């Protein structure tokens, strides 16, 4: 409704750009993962060619078991790019098989050949096959057809494809089983047995996509079959790492003007962690955020790249200026201005535009500084024991967005722990921070970098002084380094001891002084740059913060809605008649609510007659006692009809079903806790 034409235009192209960007990210991540995989499977294959005799004897098919994790929905993407990569770099013969397409070995072969020959396999090949099957045993025929097709294929292809130089001399045939678990055992077994017969003629490589654990192969296949496979295990990137990458690349950059507020991000992450582990769903949620933001926030026109902001601000209409004035954060800003400026801001559009330009620039600078500092802080927090501010940078990000991070208890404990860091760690952390800050686009960091470098040189100077006391500790730590818990435990003890010692001596060493200084400095940087976004003026333009919308559309609760509607129709129908005391159901509620309410009182079976009578009692009571009272067992036709309607509606909704157990009874399909 409030959609300005400009923003329509804007969001049309906007999400697309981001989406492709995200997908590129995903792919990039994936490729890195796959290149190694490829190399290994290459070598595997080469091995196979070299050790020909051995392979032939054992008739083992080289197999890659690719453990992908339970986020099944993301696998599609992975496999698509996998087959793309394979086709580009290794072999033209890649077939992707899905369990749902292959209920039988016949379908499997059909699909396989179809994909290998890059065309839709028409029926004639199968007609032959069928005719034969009519004559003799089906299994033999399948075997026969399979290998004939394979052979046919194998002898056909080299002549065709030999021209392409990027592939090998005799390119392997890669068959990918996308969802290994859902294939029927029979199909897999048959396929493996059949193809192992021809492994010496056909350079076949299998790839099993596995969602659960590699043990499933042995669960699915009997030993006689699994012994035909030469399985190597590959682990894909876990979905959590995947998510971190995406958050890192998309949300924690200044590249994209749209930002997510803490609540929204929390909702998205929670859906990811508690519901599906699906990166794709996360991206979908993010897309929804983009759409929602540009659709509902009229000022989202201004949410764009720095270069365009100026142009857009100039083209703002009066109404849009008014919208800006209505923004809470802007009003807060105005209130803090001197009075003459206040008037100017509230009356002249021109001045307002200038200020807005200024403020948006500020906001941009804030972001430019925010992210590097956030990363620096993460360098510290992520290496401390117990991760006071969260292990992942996203947790830290949320904490910083939520409120002033330095006011939280966790931050306190972070500072305390940081004050106990040993020199070695501290130096490496500082070096990392310097790297981060140097590579960041923020312009204000020159001073900070200088300061940090100064600290580093000071640490180096300290070398002789007090490093000695840390040497034995370092050695001890090394011993425990392998078991993380043990390490942390020891770390605690040591730091406590150290603390005690220093208390006892009451004299700070030079190193300790310096350490305090460093920590204080970092604290000041954090206070300076990590202000939560909603303290910033005009943050509404850039931040999407209606988390409830997101939850409503992505993580809906249909049963709750149904329950509420049936139990408390007043939530939806704002009629005074329905507003009974305390929100309980009144007898004027819609028929279905009354019928539902009555049926809750019953056990497993419901007598329709009783139900009908109860219903008519309620309904006639509403219509007034004066209405000619129907005789006790004669119910008004209209009421009867209404009852029938309500009951069949309940049936449609799945609360009851007809039962044959007893005449004129229906069975309840819900049962409950009492």
């Amino acid at each position, binding site marked *: 409704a409030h959609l300005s034409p400009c923003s329509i235009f804007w969001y049309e192209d906007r999400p697309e750009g981001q989406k492709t960007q995200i997908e590129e990210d995903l792919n990039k991540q994936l490729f890195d993962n796959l290149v190694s995989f490829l190399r290994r499977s290459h070598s595997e294959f080469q091995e196979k060619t070299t050790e020909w005799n051995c392979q032939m004897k054992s008739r083992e098919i080289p197999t890659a078991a690719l453990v992908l994790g339970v986020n099944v929905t993301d696998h599609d993407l992975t496999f698509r790019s996998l087959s793309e990569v394979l086709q580009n770099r290794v072999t033209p013969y890649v077939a992707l098989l899905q369990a749902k397409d292959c209920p039988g070995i016949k379908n499997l072969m059909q699909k396989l050949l179809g994909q290998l020959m890059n065309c839709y396999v028409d029926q004639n090949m199968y007609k032959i096959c069928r005719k034969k099957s009519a004559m003799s045993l089906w299994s033999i025929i399948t075997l026969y057809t399979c290998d004939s097709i394979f052979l046919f294929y194998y002898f056909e292809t080299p002549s065709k494809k030999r021209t392409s130089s990027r592939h090998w001399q005799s390119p392997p045939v890669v068959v990918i089983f996308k969802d290994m678990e859902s294939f029927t055992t029979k199909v897999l077994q048959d396929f493996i047995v059949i193809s192992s017969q021809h492994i010496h003629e056909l350079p076949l490589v299998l790839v099993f996509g596995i969602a659960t654990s590699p043990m499933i192969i042995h669960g699915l296949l009997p030993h006689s079959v699994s012994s035909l496979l030469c399985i190597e295990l590959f682990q894909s990137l876990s979905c959590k790492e995947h998510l971190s990458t995406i958050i890192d690349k998309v949300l924690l950059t200044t590249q994209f003007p749209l930002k997510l507020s803490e609540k929204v991000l929390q909702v998205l992450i929670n859906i990811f962690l508690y519901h599906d582990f699906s990166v794709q769903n996360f991206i979908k949620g993010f897309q929804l955020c983009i759409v929602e933001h540009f659709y509902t926030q009229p000022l989202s026109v201004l949410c764009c790249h720095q270069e365009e902001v100026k142009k857009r601000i100039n083209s703002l209409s009066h109404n849009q200026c008014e919208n800006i004035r209505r923004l809470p954060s802007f009003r807060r800003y105005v209130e803090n201005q001197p009075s003459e400026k206040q008037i100017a801001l509230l009356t002249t559009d021109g001045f307002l535009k200038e200020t807005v330009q200024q403020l948006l620039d500020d906001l941009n600078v804030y972001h430019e500084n925010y992210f590097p500092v956030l990363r620096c802080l993460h360098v510290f927090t992520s290496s401390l024991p117990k991760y006071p501010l969260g292990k992942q940078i996203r947790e830290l990000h949320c904490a910083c967005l939520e409120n002033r991070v330095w006011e939280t208890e966790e931050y306190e404990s972070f500072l305390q722990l940081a004050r106990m860091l040993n020199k070695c760690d501290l130096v490496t952390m500082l070096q990392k921070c310097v790297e981060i800050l140097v590579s960041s686009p923020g312009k204000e960091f020159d001073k900070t970098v200088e300061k940090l470098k100064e600290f580093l040189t000071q640490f180096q100077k300290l070398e002789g002084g007090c490093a000695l006391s840390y040497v034995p500790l370092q050695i001890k730590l090394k011993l425990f380094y392998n078991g993380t818990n043990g390490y942390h435990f020891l770390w605690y003890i040591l730091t406590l001891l150290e603390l005690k010692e220093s208390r006892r001596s009451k004299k700070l060493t030079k190193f300790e002084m310096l350490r305090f200084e460093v920590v204080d400095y970092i604290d000041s940087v954090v206070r300076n740059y990590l202000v939560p976004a909603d303290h910033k003026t005009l943050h509404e333009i850039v931040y999407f913060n209606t988390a409830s919308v997101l*939850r409503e559309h992505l993580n809906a609760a249909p049963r709750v809605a149904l329950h509420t509607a049936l139990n408390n129709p007043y939530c939806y129908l704002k009629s005074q008649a329905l507003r009974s005391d305390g929100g309980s159901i009144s007898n004027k509620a819609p028929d279905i609510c009354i019928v539902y309410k009555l049926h809750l009182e019953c056990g497993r079976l419901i007598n329709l007659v009783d139900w009908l009578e109860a219903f008519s009692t309620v309904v006639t009571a509403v219509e007034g006692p004066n209405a000619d009272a129907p005789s006790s067992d004669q119910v008004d036709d209209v009421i009867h009809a209404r009852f029938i309607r309500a009951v069949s509606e309940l049936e449609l909704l799945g609360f009851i079903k*007809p039962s044959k157990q007893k005449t004129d009874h229906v069975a309840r399909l819900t049962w409950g806790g009492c």
Partner: protein
Amino acid sequence: MLNKYRAVSEQSCVGCQLTFIYVFICNLGVRWARQLRRGAAKALGPAAASRRHGNPGRPRAWLAAEVPPAPFSRRWQEGVGRRGPRVGGDARQSAPRCGPQRWGGSRGGRRVRVRAARERASASPRPPQGRWVARGSQGPGPRGGGGGARAAAAGGGLGAPAMSQAERKGGAALEVKFVPDEAVLRHIADDAGIKVRKDKTPLTVNVKRFVKKLDTLSDDEAQEFLEEKDYVAALGICAQDLMENGSSVGGSEVYSFQTPKRSNKMAELASELAQTPGQSVASDHSECPEKITKTPQSSKHSSSNKVQQKSKKNDFMSTTPYRLRKRLAAPDAYLESESEYSASCSEEEDDEETQKEVITVLSSLKTPAKAKVASTPPSRKKVTKKKDKMSNLVEEYFEAHSTSKVLTSDRTLQKLRKRRLNQQTLHDLLEKSPLAYAAEIEELNQQYESLFSKWMLQLHLGFNIVLYGLGSKHDLLEKFRISMLQDTVHLVVNGYFPSITVRSILNSITEEVLDHIGTFRSPLDQLEFIIKRFKEDSSLELYVLIHNLDSQMLRGERSQQILAQLSSLPSVYLIASIDHINAPLMWDQAKQSLYNWLWYETTTFSPYVEETSYENSLLVQQSGSLALSSLTHVLRSLTLNARGIFRLLAQYQLENKDNPSYPGLSFQDFYQQCREAFLVNSDLTLRAQLTEFRDHKLIRTKRECPLILEEALNATYKLSLLVAIRGWENAEVLQLFFIVFLSAYFYRDNETT
């Protein structure tokens, strides 16, 4: 604690009225006694059992050996009184045994019961030291006496943080442990509800004592609640601006659809509801005459009504904050049972004074003025609720389904002398009655209509939209179609149509959208073809509207898979509605990601007119005018003579319906008959006619004898694609159908059956 026990026992001795604790102990006691005895007898023989009674100095060790593991004991205790007692040897044996039994369903349950009954029959009188309980008990029988008390105490002691030792003076030092509060409360609240009614004065005393204990417990509960809430809050359920409070309902409330077990509960609630707004209805309803006609104590009655209302209030309080409400509302079973017995107070005619007391006690329980007492009901619930929620649900389910006995009245619609309405009259009648809250519904609809443009946008961005919520979404989608999809290619699928199939959906896409003529071997092939076409031609766009995606015909796994794949095409825009409570269970992760749903709640409250018109409701006349109308298509195409032939055949077959080995009318006989009726003039004609029937799949021929296929009725499916009648296999229905069928088409003047 010790004092408490003593006090209670004295009261019982003096007052000879049972407190609820006694009821509980007895309930438990019988079972425990039995279990102990059996376990002992099993493990060590009868000598050991007697030694136990003779040597009360070591009861603890004994009992410890026989107490079942904690989860089992709790489950076990919950089940007391309602299920037949579960008999088991000792803990080690009975715990595993109870698993399969339960899952085994009704048969297992019955077996247990039989055994229990036998056990009961052989139960011997108890030794004297236990009599103090037995004497007062009127409930589950005095035979369960002393050992029972002991056992109950021991069993309870397991879970109870606080336990007391009560030394009996009679030389037999007996260790008495206190029963866990939740178990006690459970039994007060539901099992012993009827008994509680009978005792008056002790109630308040005990309640007060309980309060002290429960307060300490409730802190932990609150803690747990807080933790649980973190996640909820994180998901934004408590987010500030909920446009409807619907979303703030916790899952536990929804998933526990309460089921009290009294058979006449419904009538009670009905009358209660009827009275709610204060219109005193003098309904002469047969179900609750006692209640209403007996109004000498009307003042009391109204007060008890108030109590009910108050307790109701707790159930659905929408103004209370979420956390509190959750706590209050979930176990409303207890409230219900309370209100139940306060409501049925009026049934007890004999002692009015006592009733007055009960009522005052109850109302004092509810008044916030007496803070200490008033806090009891919620804390009660809290304790019972949280811990047992899960096991409870499971328990309830299997309990409800283990017995074949159904506690409902035997009245049937026939006795009501109510003629069954047919679809048409039903429709007419409903037309007449005005739609309630039309204005509000209209308002709701307008609210949703404002979303149309947003939907369009989101559809184009690759999302698909699913609508949920109470009320028909048919009209809404229709409006969407009219307002937004005028100039586009769109396909409307009426999922509620009983004979809709995915295949027909795919067919209409290939034939009407893609103009493809030809058939496909399987829906998968067809889908592949469609996908290919849509990928090739990027200008192709298709909007698919599916009413009731969760209908009977479409909810299958394969159908959903195909539809999901279809909807995942970038240029196919799907907008669908779901109604069934379990509809979201159709989709696994993979399908959901294919569908890429955006959920929209559109609760319209409008009646499901279209959706239920095909449904064969129990109350609608079974013959179904729809079925008949579909048959017209077949029969109209036949000549008069052909109809006659069919009728003749059908008549013969109906006459011999009861004879399973009926060979059929031989062709020659049949020909004779037809000739006599002037239906055919040569056997060639008859053969041709029969061939036609056969082609229409109306008859089959068995050894030259034409027989009407039972599937002849099914043939209506194929011809009209309209009706799904349940219970084909049911001969009665079949006969009825035939009669209607014949009468409607051959004796048109006499349409009523």
